[in-house]
């Protein structure tokens, strides 16, 4: 008989991964993978639609509809180490697009919704 426990204990392995990544889990492990951040309340529903599309593909996504200002919402998501922030304002809505903001603070504006969804799904599935 061969005895083996791969992770040892889930708890310990969890702790090791948590410290290894400094809390910034790769997208496939992150508890919240995408946060939608509307530039103003007017864009809540627009982002909600995008988030629904992501959820239907198995992505853990939500929209921050709190009363906080946009900048505060970005800081909150950064502190929570969410891998993808999707921002949307009037310009994005007019182009049927969203703007990515990543954990390192870099941003990519005007990405068509379909492309954004595919990119996130592919990163999660490939365990990037």
């Amino acid at each position, binding site marked *: *008989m*061969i*005895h*083996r*426990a*791969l*992770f*040892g*204990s*889930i*708890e*310990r*392995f*969890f*702790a*090791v*991964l*948590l*410290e*290894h990544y*400094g*809390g910034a*889990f*790769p997208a*496939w*492990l*992150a*508890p*919240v993978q995408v946060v939608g951040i509307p530039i103003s309340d007017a864009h809540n529903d627009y982002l909600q639609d995008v988030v629904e599309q992501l959820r239907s593909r198995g992505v*853990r996504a939500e929209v921050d509809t709190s009363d906080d200002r946009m900048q505060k919402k970005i800081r909150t998501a950064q*502190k*929570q*180490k969410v891998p993808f922030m999707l921002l949307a304002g009037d310009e994005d809505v007019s182009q049927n697009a969203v703007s990515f903001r990543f954990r390192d603070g870099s941003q990519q504006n005007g990405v068509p919704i379909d492309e954004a969804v595919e990119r996130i799904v592919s990163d999660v599935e490939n*365990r990037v």
Partner: protein
Amino acid sequence: MQITLAGNAQPVAAGTTAAQLFDGDRSVVVARINGELRDLDTEIADGDVVEPVAISSEDGLGVLRHSTAHVLAQAVQDTFDDARLGIGPPIKDGFYYDFDVETPFTPDDLKRLERRMQQIVKSGQRFARRVVSDDAARAELASEPYKLELIGLKSGAGDDELMEVGGDELSIYDNINGKTGDVEWKDLCRGPHLPSTRLIPAFKLMRTAAAYWRGSEKNPQLQRIYGTAWPSKEELTKHLELLAEAEKRDHRRLGAELDLFSFPDEIGSGLSVFHPKGGTVRRVLEDYSRKRHDESGYEFVNSPHISKQELFQISGHLDWYADSMYPPMELDEGQRYYLKPMNCPYHNLIFRARGRSYRELPLRLFEFGSVYRYEKSGVVHGLTRVRGMTQDDAHIYCTKEQMPGELDSLLTFVLNCFATTASTTSTWNCRRKTPTSRSVVMPSGTRQLRHFAKPQRSNSSSSSWTQVGRRSTAPRSPFKPATPSAARGRCPRSSWTFSYRACLSWSFRPQTGRGSVRS
């Protein structure tokens, strides 16, 4: 006279000290004379082999830190009249000193003590060694009850944290005021020390903790101050930055900040609850593990969290590890039940639940099994040393011929899983005690196991199982410790590793008819 200095033979005048040999080199803080660390003011004898020990070497750092501990102790006794001395050894990256004081030290106390230490360092006190007889030491240290206890011990050999005694002779180190020649302070110590407090370039007091005298909870509780000391201010700063970075990454801190898990007091030490976000990460990990196990031909089983005493008697756990198990519950007219510490006995029962054909092997049983181990409160730490945990536990039953192939595919499987969960972690695997090192692979195949498990009648009349315990005459496995204490000694992190052998011994017991493996 003739000596060997740093590998070269050379003549020196009688009465020469080690300091004179290295004169001018301020980086040399002690000398290694005939293999032993000695103070620089030691007189060299004919034929001695002498080497310089630099402050930045491992030994040099130890001396620097121990001398800093003496400075701390002096500062404490200057500041708190009633403080009595415990021990104060160098440790990894620093030192500590234990004190018997009325009230625990506060952060403000540490600041005051640091200022006093700075004064002592600047004043350039000499460390001077003085050999004393037992009686003289007792008379001098009459007001230090803990030191008196150590004088009686004489030999501290083997105890790295006992700097007081352990040499051929007892010695006291005096701290001598450079200007007046007065003895400012003294401590029982085998040394060696820096020549002067002025050679302490950079230090910092880190934190306080309670500690029992000589590590036993039956003894009085002392207050411990931890500090660190380095050969330069830059190295001290770098060390403090590293600590700050590690602190930021501490999983207990991240767990609270990211709302992942907690350890509510009401549940008990070492028992965690996972919050929704932590639960999500955990589920993703488990799903991944399940999927990979499924693909690799494992079969999924389940077992309960408690069972009757008899099971752990047969498995050998109660013989060896009763101290590390939660105490039993008495139910059903005196029947004793234990929380399970390992999953192996249960999987073995599943294996032998019916007759197994040779063709069923290899049989790979997998379970996310929750186990409970009564770890001492002092070692419980975050999620890494807990009292309740879930293992991704598997047992592979195979023939000796299948063993190499099973091991090969198992190792490939393990490496692939780690490559996914920590994609950039080749260095990480080297730096940490990797989870793979937890798994113990037993050395023999089925036929050998049958040979190992030479049957012996169980004492229990209600059981037809046979038991191979430590009284067995069967050949010892290299994994089997000679005694329980030896097991603990050889495996300081956890003695559980060794109980695998106990489970193993009865899983393949030869039996007529049902339950045996025919080859």
